[in-house]
């Protein structure tokens, strides 16, 4: 189960000689860092150990809140800041929170129990599907900051959420769709039951009065199904007519409308056949498909809202008289000067005025290494300041910021209808046009031959050729496949994704964050002088303890057992390196440029790896090389793709040598490094011109144009929001092996769609001439229509079967997992 060398809490590798451990259920478990240890200890101390037994996914690595950040939480208690997200005045207050770090249902149990036991918390409920929490508390007993702190104690991060309109719209849409679905489902079942009796009466005979009664009951039940549940189709018909085009709603609404009116007419006039069973069942199936489609769309939409949390709620403004004042971000104006302390987020877009620091823009760009910002450099709202305090002149606030524009982009990407789906709509439109012309022609012919039979023959033609099977063929297969993939952790956000994925010939990967974890680990220590590794590491660690840079953290994490040395008079050059005195001697540590400058040396730069050098005042002592860890299962995934006949490429912005080495390691033949996003796009177009259908897998903002340019694109679940927005599918599980499954599922979906379409066309070709000749009694038409639709649905349901075991997890009770 749990590998001895991985952290029991978060599953990341435990550094050599870690001294962090927590006793859980009588067994000592290793932890990777003090953060995880503290969280695990808090969970055990509160008697919530069951969490570890029932969780189905690894917890995210725990981040310890520094005292600074804890103090910031207290600002959430101020009334002027609470104004934007807290409802209820007086002592009883309520707020919505976004919870970060929820990975499985056990997380919900854990957080609800932990928070509910706090005195003064009146209610706390977490929605697993949306990762939103509702909290209600008594202000006189507990403050919001205490609740937020308690949440961070057990390893989650909570951000207050503006109770905004989008969420409310989603909720209304969903509940309306559910009601329609329920009415259609219940109605269809009842009508079907009565229909069975009526069909039997054709064979055995039935009292005429009872028959009439049953027909009226069917009409009574079917009416709300058509009037209420099928309303979206009629609205669609009306919209299409106004725009003078023939969409998919036109045949559907016409079929429902015609069959229902004819049946109602037959019931009232006591002459003719009724089709209430077929109509209601058809409505129900179509509504079910649309409901699932809507759920997937909503889930993708929530990603956009999570961007909100990147912007902090307050900022420190420096006033004209040099006074610092904490104000809500919404009150910031352009040209205000703000102070951004280390660890804080940049509150708006602006220009750095002074101070040198590194800024982590990974949430926006996917770049894992912080970027050094000098005076005059542009700062983007939402990025995190890491090393030292910065002053910034605000340029853009609110809707004018980069983050806001990304959010708008996301909204647009989600509302766009994929081209392919529109094409399918147009084809269906022509089909309907031809059908209507044909029905009119048949009607005119029979009007002259046998006027009193003409109406019923036209109805037979309309019902028997009702494009139900045809219009269900594709959506029902896509719905089934999408549902199965979502359960496996692959979210499909665009309708065409599966169809295109089935035709993929080339798969292009980005490196950092996609094939690798995007997190640097110290890999090798190369000695350049008469010294030993332990000493070098000890000196390096003593110095790096004073730095917040991720490379410093990687060095500290390498070996936590080494005896600590103390560094004195440490001076940092942000983004470059550190100098300090350890055991009486001056040392320098930093990037090669920094060392070259400090020692007045000219150093040969190593280009194929990220390195940090350690030097004393005379010479370079050691070179630390870092590398990014590959994700697990990458090699298998690449091999699987090749086996499926896909060519695999690696396009990366990283240095050529690093890219080559990675490519060799995992078996990719075609790898190119040092590419700008424009280069990537050009290469992609070159591939496409050669006739390739390309799937792109990426994670960063720099990948976004390439993701949009590929025929089908997949983003990693941990990737940037913008990447997820421009991608057609999101790999929530981050297991690249799922990509192979997705292609397999897509190909099977394509086969099933073809089978369905063939069946629908063959059925129509046989039934149409028979109906036009007047040989098909309306009840036969109704049965034919139901059977043809059912055949299509049952065929599509084959897609929901799983063909593989879900990914391994560290759950102690894997049998309880529901996937």
């Amino acid at each position, binding site marked *: 189960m749990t590998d001895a060398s991985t952290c029991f809490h978060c599953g990341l590798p435990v550094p050599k000689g870690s001294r962090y451990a927590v006793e859980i259920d009588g067994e000592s478990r290793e932890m990777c860092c003090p953060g995880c240890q503290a969280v695990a200890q808090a969970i055990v101390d*509160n*008697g*919530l*150990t*069951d969490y570890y037994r*029932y969780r189905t996914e690894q917890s995210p690595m725990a981040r310890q809140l520094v005292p600074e950040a804890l103090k910031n939480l207290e600002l959430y208690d101020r009334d002027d800041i609470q104004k934007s997200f807290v409802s209820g005045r007086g002592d009883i207050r309520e707020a919505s929170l976004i919870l970060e770090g929820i990975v*499985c*249902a*056990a997380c*919900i*149990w854990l957080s609800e*129990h932990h928070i509910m*036991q706090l005195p003064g918390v009146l209610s706390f409920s*977490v*929605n*697993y*599907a*949306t990762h939103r929490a509702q909290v209600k508390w008594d202000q006189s007993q507990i403050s919001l900051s205490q609740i937020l702190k308690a949440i961070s104690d057990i390893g989650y991060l909570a951000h207050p959420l503006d109770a905004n309109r989008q969420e409310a719209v989603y*909720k209304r849409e*969903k*509940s309306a769709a*559910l*009601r329609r679905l*329920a*009415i259609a489902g*219940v109605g269809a079942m*009842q009508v079907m039951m009565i229909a069975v009796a009526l069909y039997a009466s054709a064979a055995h005979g039935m*009292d005429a009065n*009872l028959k009439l*009664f*049953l027909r009226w*009951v069917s009409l*009574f*039940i079917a009416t709300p199904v058509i009037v209420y549940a099928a309303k979206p189709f009629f609205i669609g018909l009306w919209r299409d007519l106004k725009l003078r085009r023939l969409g998919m709603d036109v045949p559907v609404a016409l079929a429902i409308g015609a069959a229902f009116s004819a049946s109602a007419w037959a019931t009232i006039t006591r002459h003719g056949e009724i089709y209430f069973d077929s109509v209601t069942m058809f409505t129900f199936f179509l509504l079910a498909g649309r409901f699932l489609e809507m759920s997937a769309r909503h889930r993708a939409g929530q990603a956009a809202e999570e961007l909100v949390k990147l912007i902090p709620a307050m900022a420190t403004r420096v006033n004209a008289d040099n006074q610092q004042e904490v104000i809500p971000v919404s009150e910031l104006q352009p040209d205000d000067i703000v102070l951004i302390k280390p660890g804080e987020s940049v509150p708006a877009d602006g220009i750095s005025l002074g101070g040198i620091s590194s800024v982590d823009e990974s949430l926006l760009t996917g770049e894992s290494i912080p970027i050094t910002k000098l005076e005059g450099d542009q700062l983007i709202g939402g990025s995190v300041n890491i090393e030292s305090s910065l002053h910034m002149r605000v340029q853009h606030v609110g809707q004018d910021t980069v983050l806001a524009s990304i959010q708008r982009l996301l909204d647009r990407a989600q509302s766009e209808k994929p081209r392919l789906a529109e094409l399918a709509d147009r084809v269906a439109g022509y089909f309907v046009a031809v059908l209507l012309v044909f029905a009119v022609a048949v009607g005119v012919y029979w009007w002259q031959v046998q006027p009193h039979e003409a109406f019923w023959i036209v109805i037979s033609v309309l019902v028997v050729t009702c494009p139900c099977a045809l219009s269900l063929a594709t959506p029902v297969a896509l719905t089934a496949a999408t549902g199965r993939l979502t359960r496996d952790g692959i979210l499909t956000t665009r309708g065409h994704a599966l169809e295109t994925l089935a035709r993929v010939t080339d798969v292009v990967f980005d490196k950092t964050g996609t094939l690798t974890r995007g997190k640097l680990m110290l890999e090798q220590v190369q000695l350049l002088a008469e010294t030993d590794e332990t000493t070098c590491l000890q000196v390096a660690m003593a110095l790096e303890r004073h730095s917040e840079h991720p490379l410093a953290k990687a060095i500290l994490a390498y070996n936590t057992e080494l005896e600590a040395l103390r560094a004195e008079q440490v001076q940092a050059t942000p983004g470059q390196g550190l100098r300090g005195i350890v055991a009486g001697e001056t040392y320098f540590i930093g990037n090669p440029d920094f060392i070259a400058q400090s020692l007045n040396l000219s150093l040969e730069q190593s280009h194929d790896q990220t390195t940090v050098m350690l030097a004393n005042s005379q010479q370079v002592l050691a070179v630390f090389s870092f590398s990014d860890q590959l994700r697990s299962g990458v090699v298998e995934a690449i091999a699987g793709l090749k086996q499926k006949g896909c060519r695999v490429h690696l396009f990366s912005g990283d240095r050529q040598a690093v890219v080559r080495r990675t490519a060799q390691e995992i078996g990719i033949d075609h790898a190119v490094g040092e590419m700008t996003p424009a280069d990537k796009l050009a290469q992609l177009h070159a591939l496409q011109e050669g006739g390739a259908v390309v799937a792109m897998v990426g994670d960063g903002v720099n990948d976004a144009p390439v993701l949009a340019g590929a025929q089908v694109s997949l983003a990693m679940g941990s990737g940037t929001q913008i990447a997820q927005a421009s991608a057609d599918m999101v790999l929530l599980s981050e297991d690249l092996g799922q990509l192979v499954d997705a292609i397999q599922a897509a190909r099977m979906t394509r086969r099933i769609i073809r089978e369905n379409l063939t069946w629908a066309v063959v059925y129509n070709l046989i039934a149409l001439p028979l109906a036009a000749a007047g040989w098909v009694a309306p009840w036969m038409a109704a049965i034919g229509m139901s059977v043809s639709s059912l055949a299509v649905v049952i065929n599509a349901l084959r897609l929901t079967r799983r063909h593989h075991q879900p990914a391994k997890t560290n759950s102690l009770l894997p049998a*309880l997992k*529901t996937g």
Partner: protein
Amino acid sequence: MTILYMLIPLGLVLLGVAVWAFMWAVRSGQFDDLEGPAHRILMDDDDPRIPGNKPKDKSALPGEKE
């Protein structure tokens, strides 16, 4: 078969009740989260170590030393 004239309307009334119950469930938010509650039932809420959960009957918990 005249009993059908009564039973079917009765069935319709029950149908109405079922639909009303469903609408109520939708309105009261029972369909907001379809996954969480399925797991929640498996979690052990009675662990005496959870603060606020006092073992009510100590004799029922042999081996409990406190």
